[in-house]
């Protein structure tokens, strides 16, 4: 960044938190990794639940998973991997002061996240339509009474499916909020090669969402 633009505009470097920018950068990254550790623990416990019930009834999981569309799952996987790539690319751009390119890439990332949610909406609508949500709900309520009357079997697989994808979807929404915030700051011109910590931190969160989906995809869609 040339000196003339620096004098015209207030230069953001993160030092308003009382520490020099590079230090804020290192501390923020370590703090974010600690937080991601707790996020991974949250999902690890959900996966543990999955593992326990999978061992209890592998055939049931195997058959229930057939109701899920692998095509939808694969498309969503590719969308998330691509959006992860674009956000990592955005960080490379801002390191070289290419602010406009970074903003474009962030917009693409956000659009990918929205596309993922739209896909998910259609999937959920389909699950509700063919009654799998009801099976999950019956599992939640204890699976007696109505279950016998309607000769339907409560499904632990779909219960876990809705909990896992629901919490993952919540993370997508949070991630989209973070990235939108980063994008707004990017458009305002807060970032340059000396200060892009929020981009990096927001990116880390988005990658975590991708990381978790990488495990959800085979566990939910490919067990069939």
């Amino acid at each position, binding site marked *: 960044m040339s000196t003339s633009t620096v004098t015209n505009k207030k230069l953001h470097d993160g030092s308003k938190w009382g520490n020099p*920018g*590079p230090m804020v*950068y*290192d501390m923020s*990254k*370590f703090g974010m*990794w*600690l937080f991601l*550790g707790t996020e*991974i*623990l949250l999902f*690890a*416990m959900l*996966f*543990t639940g999955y*593992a*326990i*019930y*999978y*061992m*209890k009834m*592998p*055939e049931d999981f*195997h058959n229930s998973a057939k109701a899920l569309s*692998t095509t939808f799952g*694969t498309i969503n*996987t*590719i969308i998330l*991997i*691509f959006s*992860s*790539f674009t*956000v*990592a*690319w955005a*960080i*490379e751009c801002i*390191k*070289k002061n290419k602010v406009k390119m970074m903003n474009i890439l962030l917009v693409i990332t956000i659009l990918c996240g929205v596309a993922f949610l739209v896909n998910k909406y259609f999937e959920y609508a389909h699950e509700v339509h063919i009654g799998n949500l009801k099976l999950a709900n019956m*599992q939640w309520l204890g*699976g007696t009474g109505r279950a016998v009357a309607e000769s339907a079997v409560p499904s*632990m697989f779909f219960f876990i499916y809705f909990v896992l994808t629901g919490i993952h979807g919540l993370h997508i929404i949070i991630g989209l909020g973070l990235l939108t915030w980063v994008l707004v700051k990017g458009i305002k011109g807060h970032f340059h*090669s*000396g*200060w892009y910590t929020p981009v*990096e931190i927001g*990116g*880390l969160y988005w*990658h975590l969402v*991708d*990381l978790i989906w*990488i*495990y959800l*995809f*085979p*566990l939910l869609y*490919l*067990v*069939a």
Partner: protein
Amino acid sequence: MAEGKSHFKELLLVFLGLLVLTGITVYVAKNINFGSLALNITVALAIATLKATLVALYFMHLKWESKLIISFAVISIPFLILAIGIMVWDINNKIGLGNYNLQ
């Protein structure tokens, strides 16, 4: 702050690698049976772990990170396995999956 070096090429290669691995895992799940459900899911999870490693190393910059963050991430992995493994093992072993009604 910035290392000054662009990692774009690595990122692009990793992206393509992830696409290929996604293709492989879908193909394997659809067409190849390794003999048992447990074995099939193990293969799928192994591929997922490979993908996750790529994402963590390159997209999350772990490869170029400071020793503090790298050791934090690496040391956590055995504890994570322990947390999941012990619980699953405990349920499997102590209660006995065959005769305990989890519902």
